[in-house]
């Protein structure tokens, strides 16, 4: 019950942000929505299936690039179609990658996903004609539900309609993921994480389920990446760089992967902490590195580890 009240409170708070505080903080919330969705997928992979991907930024970049290409290359501005296309492209990309990656676990899985992420990064970086190289591709302002909101300036659009659109998308994504982890499929994933041999023995097709988790995570990553591309107005190759993948895992750990809402909390805290620390010192990476090291050594269960047990996992 406390959990539910906190959830309602958080949602109401998020809905009030654009009217209650400065526009600046509202625009900071936008990357949070994008990362929140991407991390829900990553958490399915790591928190539930026990596979740590060090190349998840690959799919974030796939989403952003698909959206940018469609909007500035093909003039497709309907955001619903763009999201759908991003998800499809990510799915198509994830099938071969996933088929290869899920054959391995633990550190080999992490390394292989990292290699794929970097493969995509060098593709984005080197094929100038196709991807714009280091300049990336511009992302045009999309139409939301068919409306262009031409009367609003950029900030007005981002903190107005786009804000609520993204928030709604995060809520939907959370609800979908909630269903997924509570379905028999989610239970199987957890069984696989705890003991793959035993799971295989009782009839769970370990590799196929891992692949499904990988595909779902890819789609969530691409949707998150699409959301990220709109406020920055750009898809650039650094989105696929391995340190970006590292940051995603950092956020996940910060929030706590043992908890369903951990990744969302992690994305939120990461973004606002980054904003604060960056305004204090240019050496924010050092601070963040130290935080991450302390987390790994002392609190591997993240912030959610403090607020009590495994509430959200439904275990």
């Amino acid at each position, binding site marked *: 019950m406390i959990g539910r009240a906190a959830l309602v409170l958080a949602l109401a708070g998020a809905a009030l942000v654009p009217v209650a505080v400065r526009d600046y903080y509202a625009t900071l919330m936008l990357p949070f929505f994008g990362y929140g969705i991407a991390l829900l997928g990553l958490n399915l992979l790591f928190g539930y299936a026990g596979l740590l991907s060090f190349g998840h930024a690959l799919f974030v970049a796939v989403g952003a690039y698909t959206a940018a290409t469609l909007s500035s290359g093909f003039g497709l501005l309907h955001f619903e179609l763009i999201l759908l296309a991003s998800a499809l492209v990510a799915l198509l990309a994830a099938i071969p990658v996933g088929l290869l990656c899920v054959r391995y676990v633990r550190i080999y899985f992490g390394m292989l996903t990292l*290699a794929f992420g970097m493969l995509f990064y060098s593709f984005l970086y080197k094929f100038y004609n196709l991807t714009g190289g280091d300049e990336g591709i511009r992302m045009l302002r999309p139409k939301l539900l068919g409306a262009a909101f031409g009367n609003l300036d950029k900030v007005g659009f981002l903190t107005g309609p786009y804000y609520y659109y993204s928030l709604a998308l995060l809520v939907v994504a959370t609800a979908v993921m909630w269903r997924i982890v509570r379905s028999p499929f989610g239970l199987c994933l957890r069984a696989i994480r705890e003991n793959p041999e035993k799971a295989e023995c009782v009839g769970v097709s370990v590799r196929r389920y891992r692949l499904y988790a990988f595909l779902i995570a890819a789609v969530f990553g691409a949707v998150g990446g699409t959301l990220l591309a709109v406020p920055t107005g750009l898809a650039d190759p650094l989105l696929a760089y391995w340190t970006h993948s590292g940051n995603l895992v950092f956020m996940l750990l910060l929030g706590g992967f043992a908890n369903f809402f951990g990744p969302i909390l992690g994305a939120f805290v990461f973004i606002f902490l980054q904003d604060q620390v960056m305004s204090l010192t240019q050496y924010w990476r050092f601070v963040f590195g130290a935080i991450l090291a302390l987390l790994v050594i002392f609190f591997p269960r993240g912030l959610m580890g403090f607020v009590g047990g495994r509430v959200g996992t439904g275990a």
Partner: protein
Amino acid sequence: MQKILNLACGSFYALGAYFGVSAVRWALGAGVPAPLFVAVLVGSGLALSVIGPLIERILRTIYGRDESLQLLLTFALVLMFEDVIRFFWGTAPQQLGGVYLVYGQVHLGSLTIPVYNLIVILAGGAVAALMGWVLARTRFGRIVRATAENREMSEALGVDIARVYARVFTLGTALGTVGGALVIPATAAMTGMGIELIVEAFAVVVIGGLGSMRGAFVGALIVGVLEAVAIATYPELEMLAVYAIVIAVLVLRPAGLLGKATA
């Protein structure tokens, strides 16, 4: 050897490079004759390897826990080292002009090769041979290999595991810092060089096989030659080709070309 995938090794390399630049500048300023700068570089690299045991202390806290956490902890170190470098040396590339050609050049037909490059190549070969000899022939090497093979058994036979790990790690750090220092005369020390090196080193180690010295050597050759060929023929494919090989190796022989097929 320790079954640690240390992302921070690239940071050691970058740190070694920056430290080397400063050391040589200081030495030249103090009146050390220019031809001795190689010794200064090696010395500074070795001196810097004192951070090895310190880092090892931090990593020791998570030995025996999930390997994913090691990956994350070393990633945290990478972030911190990047800013340490930024703090001391700023973001501008640091170059050591002047000393690169102090040994002159040799002409081989139509090719002109700086003697320094030959020195580094020879030094690389010598270090590889030395490492091979240490691991294969000395008491320390035997203990290291035994520990890598079976930690519990070695411990039961009276090996001080903590000390072996600290030494191996420090050795690895020293190789990284000296290596970083030695490339400095030929290129500049740049921010981000550590992060880039990790990716290359990662490719080398995966192709060669984790925990295989000979494998690392073969992997380095493959990556180096492949990059050179790609740059000469079709520059877009440079890193792409390397990753394609990495993925092919991981898929076909996950233990690497010369690794033991146990993974």
